[in-house]
């Protein structure tokens, strides 16, 4: 016991020494390069425009803190919509892989193989090239459904009582998705859905065959069999891996920086380039994502306990 206490004390001392070494180096470097430290820069004028904003109004005259808040809101927007759509698409694909239809099974399996085996960044670049190079200009926009327009300036769709219409060089009215947002959303949703599909399939297959047979012998239809017997049991197994997929989607939304969607990471990146305060910039990114990760996993742990079988839980 005494030896282990000494070992731990030595570990602590070594960590402290390393930290002191790094900090003193950093201080010297910052001084010699005349980089300020601390978070005072947050209240200075940002001086750059942001292409699209969610919730907050923003102009270049606002301070960095507001710019970062706009970035965070943009991250939340793409992550929230992405999680919902990826769950829907993933569940559909996962169910398709279990359907009796051979063609559907092959199609779903092929989809899963392709999206899981290609880096998300490659897929994002592919979608961005497809949207920005191959969709027509707004004047010749594709119009697949009434009121929905696809063009290289983005995707436009109608809201109740507000239909997008061409005016000048672009559409006005309705709701619009910028090419960058559309790219990021499509990329994140199709990529994550491939992983969710496998979780759904594994979850449903984990339900013992006898349960399905019992449901059939009770005369339940396929829908009731899924809804009342299979899914409630499968769900328990699916919650932990689903949580980590939701977290992955949120973290992957940081790839926005590569295609120019102004999420938190790309705004923090611009901030770092302008102020030179790299440590603070990276600290902001890490703190935000850690908070998101820890709070989602705390929520999911609570939910997991709630749906666990009483008396069977370990």
């Amino acid at each position, binding site marked *: 016991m005494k030896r*282990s206490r000494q*070992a*731990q004390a030595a*570990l*602590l001392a070594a*960590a402290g020494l390393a930290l002191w070494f*790094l900090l003193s*180096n*950093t201080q*010297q*470097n*910052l001084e*010699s390069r005349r980089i300020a430290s601390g978070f005072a820069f947050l209240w200075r004028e940002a001086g750059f425009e942001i292409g699209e904003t969610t919730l907050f109004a923003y102009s270049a005259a606002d301070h960095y803190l507001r710019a970062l808040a706009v970035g965070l809101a943009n991250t939340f927007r793409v992550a929230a919509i992405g999680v919902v759509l990826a769950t829907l698409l993933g569940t559909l694909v996962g169910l398709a892989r279990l*359907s*009796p*239809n*051979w*063609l*559907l099974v092959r*199609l779903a399996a092929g989809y899963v*193989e*392709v999206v*899981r*085996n*290609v*880096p*998300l*960044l*490659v*897929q994002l*670049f*592919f979608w*961005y*090239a*497809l949207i*920005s*190079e*191959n969709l027509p200009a707004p004047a010749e926009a594709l119009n697949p459904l009434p009121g929905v327009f696809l063009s290289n300036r983005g995707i436009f769709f109608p809201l109740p009582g507000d239909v997008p219409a061409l005016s000048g060089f672009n559409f006005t009215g309705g709701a619009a998705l910028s090419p960058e947002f559309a790219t990021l959303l499509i990329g994140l949703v199709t990529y994550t859905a491939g992983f969710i599909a496998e979780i759904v399939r594994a979850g449903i297959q984990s339900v013992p065959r006898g349960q399905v047979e019992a449901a059939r012998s009770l005369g339940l239809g396929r829908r009731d069999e899924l809804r009342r017997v299979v899914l409630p049991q499968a769900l328990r197994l699916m919650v932990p891996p689903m949580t980590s997929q939701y977290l992955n989607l949120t*973290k*992957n939304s*940081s*790839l926005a*920086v*590569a295609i120019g969607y102004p999420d938190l*990471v790309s705004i923090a*990146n611009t901030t*770092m380039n302008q102020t030179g305060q*790299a*440590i603070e*910039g*990276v600290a902001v*990114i*890490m703190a935000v*994502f*850690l908070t998101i*990760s*820890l709070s989602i996993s705390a929520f999911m742990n609570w939910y997991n306990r709630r749906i666990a079988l009483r008396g069977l839980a370990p």
Partner: protein
Amino acid sequence: MTWLRRNLFSSVPSALATLLILWLAIRYLPPFFSWALFDAVWSAPDPRACREAQGACWAFIGEKHRFILFGTYPYEQHWRPALATVVLLFLWIFSAFSRHWKWWLGAVWAAGLAGIGLLMWGGMLGLPYVENERWGGLILTLLLATFGVAFAFPLSILLALGRRSELPVLRAACVGYIELIRGVPLISVLFMASVMLPLFLPAGVSIDKLLRAQLALVLFAAAYLAEVVRGGLQAIPRHQHDAAEALGFTYWKKMRLVVLPQALRLSIPPLVNTFIGFFKDTSLVLIIGLFDLLSTIKVSLQDPAWSGFGVEAYLFACLAYFAFCYAMSAYSRHLERGGSGRLLRES
């Protein structure tokens, strides 16, 4: 006929799904194939032929293939990264066979990597010296992934053991590290290495960009691999520990001879899966300005003469990454089925 009935038209919804898929295939597959194959331009001396054609411009890949594969490596020396790529791929394929999992495999790797280092850097045997900054393309992606795992794996074993240790300070440090890294996006770790790390070093010491990115990838991969190794450690029954302790083994002897050999064998399939994810993640070094495979493809598109062929270029990137990842995931499935024998026989 029976097969068709049972597998495609077993019920009304199933029949509808079949018909819908067939309709979509008839509507969209012919135009796709004529774009990708029949109307495509396969080779052209200049981009004009591509701009006039209706189909895909694969000539772009042909025109740029040297840059895509080797980046800014000196042109007349391209045989060196090409040979290094072949050696590295051979090492990977050679190590995939479980009958080669012997002590001398490490020696084979050491020799192979030494050879690759000699080829890439040169400076000896009449090979001109080529600095890291000029490395690029496929070999860079493969090297980042290889060295990432080579260094991350031992680190991850230490982290996993630390996380299950009985020493509270050590355990807290390992848990903190693993959860911190797994909680943040890779891009922030890469930013840390590319913009923060230079600030941490004493004056006069600098590490080049490639090594900084490699360090970030190692630190990142170690946290994820550690969780896989921990899964393997947890699967080892208590009595194995008890038996080793009853024999008077010390902690390290117990881990080295009894627990880890079993735990690591159990974790091989999930380790391969984690490695696939890591291989895909190396593409993010593009964001901090390294010339990996994806980056060379993206830069090729910036040539104004050949701009506008992004769909073709990224489809090619998809195919290239898919080939590697699919091979690895097929291998992982083969291991999971116990196809390699050794996984089951010896545990």
